């Protein structure tokens, strides 16, 4: 069975939004900066709640931030 993977464009979106810092994004979505780092490195897959918060922080849809690949 092929391994499913969730990619994200958080780093790209941060820079597209006035070079938002990881700290700033973390405080907007209510998580730690270490979590943002883990997300950007693809080491952690967020809960659906955090994913929605992230999308809203950037003003985009969920799939603009996270992409599901099989």
């Amino acid at each position: 069975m092929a391994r499913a993977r969730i990619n994200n464009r958080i780093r790209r979106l941060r820079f597209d939004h006035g070079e938002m810092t990881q700290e700033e994004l973390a405080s907007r979505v209510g998580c730690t900066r270490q979590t943002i780092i883990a997300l950007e490195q693809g080491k952690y897959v967020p809960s659906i709640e955090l994913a929605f918060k992230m999308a809203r922080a950037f003003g985009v849809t969920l799939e603009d931030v996270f992409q599901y690949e099989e």
Partner: protein
Amino acid sequence: MSVKAYRLWMAAIVVIVAGLAGWAVTAGNAFIPAPAVIVGAAILYFCRRRIKVVIVDERIHRIGEQASRRTIEIAVIVMALVASTLLALGTDNRPELETVGVTLGYSVCAILLLYTILYNYFSRKFGGKE
């Protein structure tokens, strides 16, 4: 309160509580450890509420969940193996080994019982039971 200040407070409280508990045990005073731990935990709780930034989030919780599960798995297996070895070694001339083995065995059972109770509780809470 900043995270740095909170961590300093935490370190200081842990040292004080551990020191008090250690002193109470050596002095044979059974009334100090429990209140010391409760007061220390209360102070830490109030310090934590005064922090503006997020220091614990879902990733930290998930790490804790994984670590707890692995700890239980490893501890229970090791304790069960040690308990059965001690029970096997415990003969008439080494009854203390048998006592330790029985205690360890009951401890394993107690941990597994608590795990089962909590597993069922959370399973119901998160809708896993029909």
